[in-house]
């Protein structure tokens, strides 16, 4: 079994799988477009959840949300299945492959053999596509990789049944039905509107307010939890913002690319200008990450550096607040 499947690399696994699966069926939706329609831009601060001994920060919504929203907004029906037994999970996968349908899988990263060791954390919401089986090995199109890879039956079972938070339980999905006609413009507007609402949400753990909360905490951390822990927390923030998958600047550049595409598709030149503004905000996030990383290089610098970092983040929050208020008015 070897389904002719075009592997295209993407920044983020979820958008990439969606985009590639749709492309396989002849629907050309770029990664930024999938990201924007699925309202992928986000910020959340979860101080009460600890991930790798630091609070949870995220620049994107819960895994699976982008796909679900995109499918709903375009009227695509996607079949999702989870399994209690690895045996059944394998049979279901092979049945679909034999029908010539490429299958998306949710997997754990830790046991993925083709990943560099540094990236093998217990993170269970990675996505990839299986597009065939050859000599006992599954053919894998992992959208964050340059090239396609292979996994043995045993290796695939291990990653499909990884344990812990967001355990995949063999989760597989494939496109069941595509609409004859879909309203791209309406979907784009919906996606943008929801992102604006998310980012300006009147709750402290989401959007602009969450950024402000983090900024306030950065000021406090050095005295309350000590410098070492503060540095670790900030490192977590940088990793969530820049690590493999965000396309740089905590997804801000992908979003700017989306706005640029949307400007053409909706015939709204103002969105081109918004795209340029979003790029500038993304650059500010990059500077923020760069300044944090200086902490690890320079062990005894000026005392007010944490205040400066907090100030930087507060400024970004203010800029994003203005940005999304304007964008909401444009749409």
């Amino acid at each position, binding site marked *: 079994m070897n389904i002719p499947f075009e592997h295209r*690399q*993407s*920044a983020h696994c979820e958008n990439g799988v969606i985009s590639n699966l749709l492309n396989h069926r002849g629907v050309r939706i770029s990664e*930024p477009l999938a990201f924007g329609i699925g309202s992928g831009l986000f910020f959340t601060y979860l101080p009460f959840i600890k991930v*790798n*001994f630091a609070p949870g920060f995220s620049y994107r919504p819960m895994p699976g949300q982008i796909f679900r929203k995109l499918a709903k907004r375009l009227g695509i029906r996607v079949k999702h299945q989870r399994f209690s037994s690895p045996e059944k999970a394998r049979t279901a996968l092979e049945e679909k492959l034999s029908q010539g349908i490429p299958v998306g899988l949710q997997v754990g990263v*830790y046991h993925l053999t*083709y*990943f*560099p*060791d*540094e*990236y*093998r*954390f*217990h993170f269970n919401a990675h996505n990839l596509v299986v597009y065939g089986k050859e000599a006992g090995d599954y053919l894998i199109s992992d959208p*964050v*990789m*340059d090239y396609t890879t292979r996994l043995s039956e045993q290796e695939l079972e291990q990653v499909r049944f990884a*344990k*812990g938070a967001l*355990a995949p339980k063999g989760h597989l999905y494939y496109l069941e039905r595509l609409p004859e006609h879909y309203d791209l413009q309406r979907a784009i507007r919906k996606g943008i509107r929801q992102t604006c609402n998310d980012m300006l949400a009147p709750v402290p753990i989401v959007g602009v307010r969450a950024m402000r909360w983090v900024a306030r905490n950065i000021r406090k951390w050095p005295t309350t939890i000590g410098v070492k822990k503060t*540095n*670790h927390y*900030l*490192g*977590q923030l*940088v*990793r969530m913002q*820049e*690590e*493999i*998958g965000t*396309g*740089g*600047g905590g997804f801000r*550049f*992908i979003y*700017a*690319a989306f706005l*640029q*595409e949307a400007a053409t598709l909706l015939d709204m030149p103002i969105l081109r200008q918004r*795209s*340029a503004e979003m*790029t500038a905000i*993304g*650059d500010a996030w*990059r500077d923020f*990450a*760069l300044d*944090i*990383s200086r902490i*690890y*290089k320079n062990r005894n610098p000026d005392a007010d550096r944490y205040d400066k970092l907090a100030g930087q983040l507060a400024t970004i929050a203010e800029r994003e607040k203005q940005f999304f208020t304007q964008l909401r008015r444009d749409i």
Partner: protein
Amino acid sequence: MKKDEVPQDNGSLAKKNVHELCYAVDENGQYTTVRSSGWEAKTLALNESLQLIDERIAATKQAVLAGAVSPIAYYMELHRMDVSLLSSYVGMHRWLVKRHFHPKRFAKLKENILRKYASVFGISVEQLKSPFPQSDT
């Protein structure tokens, strides 16, 4: 970010010949994708986190050698796990797993329980019992 500003530092991805995709604007302000081999800023952040893990592993190793905890604790740290994750992998309650950290209770564990732990860590029961053959006496 401009196309020519996309960093090409030597990151941990480059070792496996993996690149990541970045979005950047070209000279006409059009968005395009550029492959990047890494960025020093995030490599530093990643190393900080890996260093923390190494410190924890080293501390647990000392504790095992001193007879304060069982080798299960060491392998757990080695595999970047915590108690709740390990307990879901072996299919036992977390307080049972925590009990098995006790060296005396560990010494009395039955073969089938030891095999469960060993298979989660991908090692043999012998390796589980004596994790540091050279330094152990």
